[in-house]
């Protein structure tokens, strides 16, 4: 019973963390793209800029870095298993 309770708490916390990190990561990525564009083209037309950034974002959404955020779910399980093994 306690175990289920722990699982629920763990799941809620890691899910919150997952969303927080993914929003943050997306925001950082977008900012990077914007800065890159500003560096490459002084001004430039806004349609091309939007296309460039949206393209970059789509690339990110399908990229490997985004998948790394799943580690938020994996790492605690590994840690708990390690501690369980070490204490008992």
């Amino acid at each position, binding site marked *: 019973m*306690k*175990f289920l*309770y*722990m699982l629920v708490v763990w799941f809620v916390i890691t899910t919150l963390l997952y969303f*927080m*990190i993914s*929003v*943050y990561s997306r*925001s*950082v990525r*977008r*900012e990077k793209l914007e800065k890159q564009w500003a560096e490459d083209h002084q001004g430039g037309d806004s349609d091309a800029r939007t296309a460039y950034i949206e393209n970059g974002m789509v690339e990110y959404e399908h990229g490997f870095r985004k998948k790394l955020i799943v580690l938020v779910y994996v790492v605690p399980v590994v840690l*708990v298993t390690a*501690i*369980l093994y070490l*204490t*008992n």
Partner: protein
Amino acid sequence: MQKLKTGVRVIVILFAGMFLHYVLPQHDIARITGTEVIRQDFSSVNRIFFAQAESGNVDGATRDVQFISVMRRPTYLFGLIRGAEANDVMIYRNEDTGWIWPPYFKFDSRDLQGEAQENTSTAEAPKWVSITHYGWRNRFFTVFPNAISIKRIDDPNMTIIPWFNIMFFIALMAGILFLRAVWLQFRERALDPTLDKVGDEWDRVEAGVAERQSRLKRWFGSLRGK
């Protein structure tokens, strides 16, 4: 206001520090002098300083708790400095922490009791052990630290490096810096633009009001023949 803020900050840091001091593992170099099982009738004061019944059992109002008595080298300054002589009496409780809190996931308290009995020794022929534990000893409230593991050591003068705590504080700092970065990013990208927009809107409303007021004033002025 500034004083109040500092005061609140000091209290928060103090409580966080006490919390970590209670929960994080510490090591004692000791000689086990005996083990006991004593029934504990918990009061509302010391109940939170004990864990729950072993994970296969059900929790009653009172229960038997295993204890380990040792003579240990006294520790000072959060365990960073250790006294030379093992002349400090310490009593540990030996309870399962189970699945929840604190997250030591200890289920082997009975086995640990067996290990403690195996390593019981006299002052004349001492067997030295390193005892990992968390928690506080308080004589007035009958509170004991919880022993997590017992390891035989050869040299009672050895230095123990608290690797876990070092890693923990590094991870804690990294976590705090990460949260700060998330917050700054959020403020820069989401909060400030929105607030700017709201601020602009407000400026426009204020400007409109001022405009209408001045028109009203002019009209009043015209009535009074100015």
